[in-house]
């Protein structure tokens, strides 16, 4: 296998070295635990506050470690690249996040994540931690059916973590934090496009082969091919292919308020994300929907993939206030 063209030393050590760098750069915000690997808030769990833990494969940075901090997560558990973490990483993170008020686990809907968090919750429960789990499944590219693995959790996860984090900070109890997380999950939808594949370090070659004049619509965040492959189109046209199913699935009606989140897959210039944002916003406004909050940037990535996803969250006063609440993480801060 030819050496893969990345700023890494070794596919086997990249996650650990990256976490070490992350911890060294932001000691005021995070503390890195190395055996097993997880990211926790500097200063540890706040007494009486519901703990929030999330996690998943690495390669989606800043998700989840970049969202650890006041107003968002208490701990994040990174797996190997694109591979769910193991229960013996997750369980200690859950314990570290617990200050007696219980812990909400925010899990993206992937078989691996669900199963590993399930086992971890059992382990933590055995140690006396009350754990509740919510499963994020915002990707409308995937058919949601009782007979399938269901929709994936993608960029909408940021909204779940931010809003549930704010609720926990405000003193909501575990049931209430879980309820507001479920409210976000019920009201957030996403869809993504890839212009290029990404290369997982250990795989050494692109996750799929895409001709120069074709793109993948309905991709997830693990370099999987999308639902369909179409000829390259203009940004406005592509944006419409992403926004329409999202808005339709949410049944958005005129007069409703939303958060519009355009997420980059890692390798897309910010200038292009704003081109997508511009069109997505116009399409929502054509429907009479009011965009009252916005987020644009690379927050839930697939390594160096070029592409973007469009996420819409239906807002009410509670969700808006929680979105606006202070947050101090390395990736989101206000």
């Amino acid at each position, binding site marked *: 296998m030819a050496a893969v063209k990345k700023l890494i030393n070794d596919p086997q050590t990249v996650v650990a070295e990256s976490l070490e760098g992350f911890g060294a750069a932001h000691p005021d915000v995070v503390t890195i635990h190395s055996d097993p690997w997880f990211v926790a808030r500097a200063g540890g769990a706040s007494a009486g506050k519901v703990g929030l833990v999330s996690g998943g494969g690495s390669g989606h940075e800043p998700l989840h470690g970049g969202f650890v901090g006041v107003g968002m997560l208490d701990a994040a558990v990174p797996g*190997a690249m*694109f591979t769910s973490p193991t229960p013996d990483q997750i369980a200690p993170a859950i314990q570290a996040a617990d200050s007696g008020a219980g812990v909400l686990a925010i899990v993206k809907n992937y*078989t691996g994540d669900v199963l590993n968090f399930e086992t971890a919750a059992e382990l933590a429960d055995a140690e006396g931690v009350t754990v509740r789990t919510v499963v994020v499944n915002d990707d409308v590219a995937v058919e949601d059916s009782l007979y399938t693995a269901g929709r994936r959790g993608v960029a909408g996860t940021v909204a779940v973590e931010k809003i549930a984090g704010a609720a926990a900070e405000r003193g909501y109890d575990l049931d209430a934090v879980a309820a507001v997380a479920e409210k976000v999950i019920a009201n957030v939808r996403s869809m993504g496009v890839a212009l290029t594949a990404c290369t997982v370090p250990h795989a050494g070659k692109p996750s799929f082969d895409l001709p120069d004049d074709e793109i993948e619509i309905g991709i997830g965040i*693990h370099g*999987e091919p999308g*639902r369909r492959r179409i000829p390259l189109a203009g940004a406005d046209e592509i944006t419409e292919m992403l926004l329409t199913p999202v808005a339709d699935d949410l049944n958005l009606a005129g007069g409703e308020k939303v958060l519009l989140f355009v997420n980059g897959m890692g390798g897309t210039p910010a200038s292009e994300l704003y081109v997508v944002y511009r069109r997505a916003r116009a399409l929502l406004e054509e429907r009479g929907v009011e965009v009252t909050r916005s987020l644009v940037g690379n927050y839930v990535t697939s390594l160096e993939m070029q592409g973007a996803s469009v996420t819409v969250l239906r807002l009410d006063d509670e969700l808006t206030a929680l979105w606006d609440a202070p947050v101090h993480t390395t990736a989101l801060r206000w």
Partner: protein
Amino acid sequence: MTLDVAWAVDWVRRSAQTVIEHRDELIELDRQIGDGDHGENMTRGFTAVVAKLDALDAAPADIGEVLKLVATTLMSTVGGAAGPLYGTAYLRAAKATGVPELDSQGVVALLEAALEGIVARGKATTGEKTMVDAWTPATEAAVAAADSGASPADVLSAAADAAHEGAEATIPLVATKGRASYLGERSAGHLDPGARSTELILRAAAQAAE
């Protein structure tokens, strides 16, 4: 003829060897319809298993102890979907084999327990394009062979053959479980990586019994 703890250790070492040998193939299969990590995950897991085996102070007492070591190590090093699925399979198999030696029916019990564990965790049935499509025919073939009086080695050999058939038969399927299900119709035409790793592991079991 029966299988003892030496067989179990040999099975595990052979499993590691074959998984590592087929690492790139499993990655490539998973790249087609998943996220390209299955070969890496299994290699990481079985490398850790062998390291654990090598580090044991005393030889394992029975087959169950070996399988439990495999279970906990895979569970804590593989991650992804395969980690909990294989982990549970070995854990259930360990429970079903708390005996010093396995006869043919004992081999059947091992395989059945493993399959039950996978289904209990993953909630997949046959035809969903997962490792269940290799484990199920393997277990059925083992039952048939054992019932017709085959030796443990022949039971495992029948299971491995059936796992191979089962894995190949996943090619035309449209996945409805696991990561490949996100591809919908586009998942058809590709062999399921977990079914392939199942086949490799069962072939290792048969070879260890030869």
